[in-house]
């Protein structure tokens, strides 16, 4: 970064020297921190072959793969359903009729306020209470859909509203009906602006599948806990969780790269008058989605 930022002027010779010193000191501090962590790992025998050995075996790899696929399955189904839910409720919230608008607003606001874990519990315990068996996958998917669908509904609505008024006014002026205005004028422009925020929310959805372990849905983290808890292998929690973390970070990172790529691509081919959803609502193009 040679360009001046809002905080600093272009560094002169003295500032450069000072920055170099701070740089060296902070590198030393960071290396020290990492070194200490590695030392602790080494000292407590985390690098022992016994703790890592089992990952060489196909049986254990198959377990991890099965967990990963279960995670992707739950995330995949919930993504499709949440997008549908979001589209439906965003449409209702944008309606002119209060009879549609009011209940949709209520539902969206309510589900955004309930912790996801509690929604999953609703999906899991309540059917059982009424003697109705439900697969854990669906308990998880219902929770994920209701929560993320509601957030997506808000993203869709904000995206449509972010298209400048002139666009819809012009469309109405040439005699289009509301349905046509939204479908032909607003949506195509809004989608480009919303894409990064949508992808970011889908990263959140993928991460949240990890909550499935509390209702013992056999996703990646649950499998990790099983492998890590094997007493006969000296409870290899540390290596197992490191491997699980790498898988999560790689998968979510891939999606984040996709979001970044979409954003860049939009910046290049700017055929829209809608600004990419502003920081005010969604942080760094949605990357504050939590």
């Amino acid at each position, binding site marked *: *970064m040679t360009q001046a930022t809002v905080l600093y002027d272009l560094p002169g010779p003295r500032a450069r020297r000072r920055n170099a010193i701070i740089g060296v000191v902070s590198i030393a501090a960071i290396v020290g921190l990492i070194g200490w962590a590695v030392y602790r790992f080494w000292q407590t025998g985390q690098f022992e072959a016994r703790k890592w050995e089992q990952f060489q075996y196909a049986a254990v790899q198959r377990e991890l793969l099965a967990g990963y696929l279960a995670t992707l399955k739950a995330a995949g189904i919930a993504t499709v359903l949440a997008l549908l839910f979001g589209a439906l409720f965003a449409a209702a919230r944008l309606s002119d009729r209060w009879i549609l608008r009011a209940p949709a607003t209520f539902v969206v606001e309510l589900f955004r306020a*309930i912790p996801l874990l509690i929604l999953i519990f609703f999906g899991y315990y309540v059917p059982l209470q009424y003697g109705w068996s439900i697969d854990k996958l669906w308990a998880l998917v219902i929770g994920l859909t209701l929560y993320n669908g509601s957030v997506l509904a808000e993203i869709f609505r904000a995206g449509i509203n972010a298209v400048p008024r002139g666009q819809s006014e012009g469309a109405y002026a040439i005699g289009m009906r509301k349905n046509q205005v939204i479908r032909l004028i607003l949506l195509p422009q809004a989608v480009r602006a919303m894409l990064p925020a949508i992808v970011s929310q889908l990263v959140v959805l993928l991460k949240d599948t990890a909550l499935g372990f509390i209702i013992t849905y056999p996703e990646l983290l649950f499998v990790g806990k099983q492998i890590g808890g094997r007493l006969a292998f000296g409870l290899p929690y540390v290596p197992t969780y490191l491997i699980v973390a790498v898988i999560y970070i790689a998968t979510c990172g891939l999606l984040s790269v996709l979001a970044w790529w979409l954003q860049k691509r939009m910046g290049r081919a700017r055929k829209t008058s809608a600004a990419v959803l502003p920081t005010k609502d969604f942080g760094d193009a949605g990357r504050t989605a939590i």
Partner: protein
Amino acid sequence: MAEFLRVLTDNWSLYSQGFTNTVKLFLVAAVGSLVLGTLLGAMRVSPVPALRAFGATYVNVLRNTPLTLVFAFLVFAVPKLDVNIDYLPAAFLALTLYTSAFVCEVVRSGINTVATGQAEAARALGMTFLQVLGSIVLPQALRSMVPPMMSVFIAMLKNTTIAAGFSVLEAGAIPAYMSERGEPQFAVLLWITIGFLILILPLVVLQRFLERKLAVAR
């Protein structure tokens, strides 16, 4: 209806204990992640490449890791490194480490919303770094930081429920206890929902109020 009320009154001590711990977790982790997140945010906008890289790595690792895994790592893996943390502090730490990545991003993008020309003009007037920061950049940046920061904290309040899986008795742990006591789960969960609505509503109202009050035309 009477049954519904009974669920709350019979188990009042469990509910109040659970929600007290939820609020405690929220307050401590909010302060913690505000401090750590601001520090990381400062690193990410600093002129020192090493600090910027560290901040970026931290944010990208934590943001792409499920909070549940952060919890699991602190409770099951970290003790294996001979570093012992009790359950409640572990929950504080997990929430703080995770949330600060998001706070950091809010801080960074907040500062980046201030136009470079503002600071350049201030420097042209001869202001020092601290003056530029204190009177020009921060007042503008803070305005745009407040609403997303509130969103992050509202999300964090809801995230405290994950501690239930790691031996902390907070609101999210109530259903498991109630299952033991044989209470109807629908009523149990409805009361928890109401509890969270009571906690979250003031935050949302505050957020909307601040959003309106701090709105600036750029």
